[in-house]
């Protein structure tokens, strides 16, 4: 067993314990606790985005849009039909995930820039739809006083317990990725990311696997969206616009695409910034813009990816050269 895996697993377990412990630690300060909750939601989102961007190699800029669809649908179900959140959330998420699959269909024909552009257009259409069909979304004004999920005893979920629920979902989301990647499905995803033509020649049904991937990633987006809406208590189209998609993408790219830990690190480092640095509110777009450029040009592996690369180099340097570098001659 390769020591790096063990290492990553330990790190993952440590992070999980930390995530489940922090709500108790932070209970004193509602503001920090709130920031923690937001980070958890973003961790969930980042893990989902990573599934598609990190393992299948597609950059879905309509991610936030799908989260938005789920959030609006969830609110509609709870308000108009009096459904419980715990019923509305899965229903809305499932529906949004199906829509996500539909919106993902272009990727079956398009590659690289064309797919990214296409997903950008879809995101734009969704944002416009959120704004210009106000009977569902109340337009740019947004929906406020969104009721929190109810606790088992019917009381509204709040404070420590809400944070804990978010932590549980975030951990579960990351854990699911960690479980998925080594499976045959995960291996197929990676093959498609590396070279989808070759993958097809090797008997992998690229179309079907991409559809599965889109369903999963949309599910992450949707669940995160439902929790975001209830946790913040207010949503407007801007909460689910292309900038949100880009930020979530940035968490993944900055932390390290195609690793389980990377996106979590990315979300933990970047997500709190706009909350903790209120003075920098106005600068946060500039900041993330700079980060996007830096990551793309200088740090394509993200910080965790870079770390792994360094470590691999060190290990290679440590090992004595085996004879396999040159093809053996007869």
């Amino acid at each position, binding site marked *: 067993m390769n020591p790096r895996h063990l290492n990553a697993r330990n790190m993952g377990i440590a992070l999980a314990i930390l995530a489940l412990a922090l709500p108790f630690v932070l209970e004193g300060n509602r503001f920090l606790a709130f920031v923690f909750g937001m980070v958890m939601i973003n961790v969930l989102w980042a893990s989902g985005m990573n599934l598609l961007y990190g393992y299948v190699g597609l950059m879905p800029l309509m991610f936030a849009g799908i989260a938005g669809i789920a959030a609006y649908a969830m609110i509609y179900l709870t308000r108009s039909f009096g459904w419980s959140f715990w019923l509305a959330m899965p229903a809305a998420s499932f529906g949004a995930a199906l829509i996500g699959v539909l919106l993902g269909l272009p990727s079956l024909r398009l590659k690289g820039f064309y797919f990214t552009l296409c997903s950008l257009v879809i995101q734009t259409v969704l944002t416009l739809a959120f704004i210009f069909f106000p009977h569902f979304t109340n337009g740019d004004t947004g929906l406020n006083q969104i009721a929190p999920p109810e606790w088992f005893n019917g009381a509204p979920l709040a404070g420590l317990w809400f944070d804990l629920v978010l932590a549980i979902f975030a951990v579960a989301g990351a854990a699911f990725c960690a479980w998925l990647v080594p499976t045959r499905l995960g291996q197929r995803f990676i093959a498609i990311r590396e070279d989808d*033509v*070759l993958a097809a*020649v090797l*008997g992998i049904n690229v179309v079907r696997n991409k559809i599965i991937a889109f369903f999963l990633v949309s599910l992450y987006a949707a669940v995160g969206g439902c929790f975001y809406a209830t946790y913040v208590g207010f949503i407007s189209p801007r909460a689910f616009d292309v900038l949100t998609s880009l930020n979530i993408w940035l968490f993944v790219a900055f932390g390290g695409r195609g690793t389980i830990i990377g996106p979590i690190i990315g979300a933990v480092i970047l997500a709190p910034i706009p909350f903790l640095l209120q003075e920098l509110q106005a600068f946060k777009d500039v900041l993330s813009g700079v980060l996007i450029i830096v990551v793309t040009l200088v740090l394509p592996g993200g910080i965790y990816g870079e770390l792994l690369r360094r470590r691999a180099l060190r290990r290679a340097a440590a090992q004595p050269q085996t004879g*396999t570098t040159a*093809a053996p001659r007869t």
Partner: protein
Amino acid sequence: MSLLEVSALSKHFGGVIALKNVDVQMRAGETLGMIGPNGSGKTTFVNIVSGQLRADSGGMRFDGHDTLGRQPHELARLGLTRSYQAVRVFAGLSVQKNIDTACLLLAGEGLARAQLQELTEWLRLDLALDKSAGGLTLFEQRRLELLMRLAQRPKLIMLDEPVGGLAVTEVREMILLLQQLKARCSIFVIEHTMRVIRELADRVVVLMAGEKIADGPPAEILRDQRVIEHYLGTVHA
């Protein structure tokens, strides 16, 4: 009965005709070579047969199935696979991962560890397993490509210029490997290098501007007047 049966295959790109009514039969266990100058449609032929391109017209049967318009991954399941002129492996993954990925196809009924081990040693990749495939030499990559295909127990493997870009000594080795490969599955091979064809192929098909102009044993093809003036003349240099 014949393993591969291609009849009246035609394909054109815009105005350019790539293939025109090409018929090719191939028996199981046979090694069929295909030669022809650049742009004569050899690779197009392989692309169509392996499902990466759609033919404009024509018929195609493989191992008793009608395979016209089938997707590459379906063909892979039927046991038809191919290699690439520009070698194609998962450069970003380790050799071991490359092999594992190839093994995904045949879940339970896949090769036994032992057989895989035997293959790996035969292709002398056993020491390179945890290297990154991108870091291998071209020759190693070509061998890895072969290994990944064989791990899927293909009935027919289509090789697109298997010795392209290899050093002289490596070419000799490759030909050796391919001759041993004939025992394992049927081979369809495109080549420029006459030597490969002469030493491997039981039969040769000659393409010229998308049309089949000759079909027969290497010895007599290489004597064929048209082939010589159109083709051999140009290559031996």
